């Protein structure tokens, strides 16, 4: 019986929805948050000083298999929706994929990085000039979609 069910399942036509599903909808992602210190070195973003840290850096990572990424004509761009401590969307940061083209055995090889980075300016920005302190949130999302592709991350900005 179970073999019959498996056969039926395998023979079932592919749903049009699945067939047309865009690669972005198959991708999940995560985001790592780091603060830069005054020397530009990455540090923990648990507490970010708005008078010292020039930026908070978001590094998104796609779960899609690297081979699949390489085959894509247009690799996905990540967006980071950044929400202030009051839950208002402060910025949408664009993180373009880095594409490196090299030659291997006479063939051009395109390699797309699975990480994408974008930075949120902090010191000297309107965050500092209007004391927008508190617990901030960043949500990663694939460009062209409306739902986040990974869990939100939090960081705290203080004076």
């Amino acid at each position, binding site marked *: 019986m179970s073999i019959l069910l498996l056969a039926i399942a395998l023979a079932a036509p592919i749903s049009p929805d699945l067939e047309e599903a865009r690669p972005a909808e198959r991708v999940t992602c995560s985001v790592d948050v780091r603060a*830069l210190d*005054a*020397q*530009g070195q990455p540090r923990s973003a648990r507490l970010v000083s*708005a*008078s*010292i840290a*020039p*930026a908070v850096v978001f590094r998104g990572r796609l779960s899609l298999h690297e081979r699949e990424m390489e085959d894509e004509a247009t690799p996905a761009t990540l967006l980071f929706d950044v929400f*202030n401590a*009051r839950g*208002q969307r*402060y*910025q949408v*940061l*664009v993180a*373009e994929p880095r594409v490196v083209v090299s030659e291997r055995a006479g063939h051009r090889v395109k390699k797309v990085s699975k990480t994408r980075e974008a*930075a*949120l*300016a902090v*010191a*000297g*920005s*309107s965050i*500092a*000039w*209007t*004391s*927008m302190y508190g617990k901030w949130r960043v949500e990663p999302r694939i460009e062209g979609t409306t739902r986040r592709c990974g869990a939100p991350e939090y960081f705290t900005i203080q*004076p």
Partner: protein
Amino acid sequence: MRVAPTLGAWRLFVGTDGGGVHAVDGKSGQLIWSRSAAFGTALPSNGGAQAAPAGLFKNFGGNNDMILVGTNNGPDTFYALDPDTGNDIASYSDAGMAPITGMAVVDYAGNRAFFLTSNSPAVLYGVDLGPPLAANLTLSTLLSPNPVNCSPGSAGSAVLRNNRLYFGSSSTRICSVDLLTGSVSTAGNTGDGAVKGFVWPDRRNNNLYFSSNTRVQAVRDLGASINPLWSLPIPNASMVLQKPGSDYIYVGNGNGQLIQIDVVTQFQTPLTLEASGVQIGAPSLDGGYDLVIVGSSTGTLHAVRVPY
């Protein structure tokens, strides 16, 4: 601003938090040039040019036409860009330079510019801008030493008045640099976070107004010292704006309000623009119509007739 007859157009120069510098046609809104990652033309810095651009223009009596902007987050460099194309004209950097996140101040009479960095000891730099038809950036001999230290650094901008430069540090310290003697005087640290943006000099006297984390404050420059005048608790105050020639300064707060403060009596008149919890940003003035223009964290722009 109308930058130069040769450019033949009204042109706006803007910086964006993402690190770009852009020129926009002031009448059509069309982008003329952009130094940004989106166009593959970003200034060579991890953080780009977060600082607002300043400018020197022949149309206003300058020796040359140039846009002046510093970069953030290494390598930290001060650039002169061609207002027509956005291309580099000249740059200045040295090993001690820290991120430049504030707008430079341009002294047309002295053909020089001053900018701040966020880390001591190299805090205030002065650069000469070069003779006509030979725009350049070289360390000015006017300041000695150059750069000037005023610990712990500043993410804001200096203002120039009567051969003095004033700026706030990231520890609520006010620094005053006499450009004739090179002497530096400071007002104490009130422990209320960074001075926001810049200090506002009252052109009628020697008073300076500024915001820190939870307060709006006034000090008076007496030459040899800077004395505190008053300090008002206003949480999440924005940068300060004075209506020139009046007793009123304006600040936004974190409760959806624009606050008018009488600098003589310290009487406050709040005007509620949005719900409590909404941050009102730095005000700017349309002097021709007596309007204060402010944005908010909900993305709303308000125009308020002043005084009210």
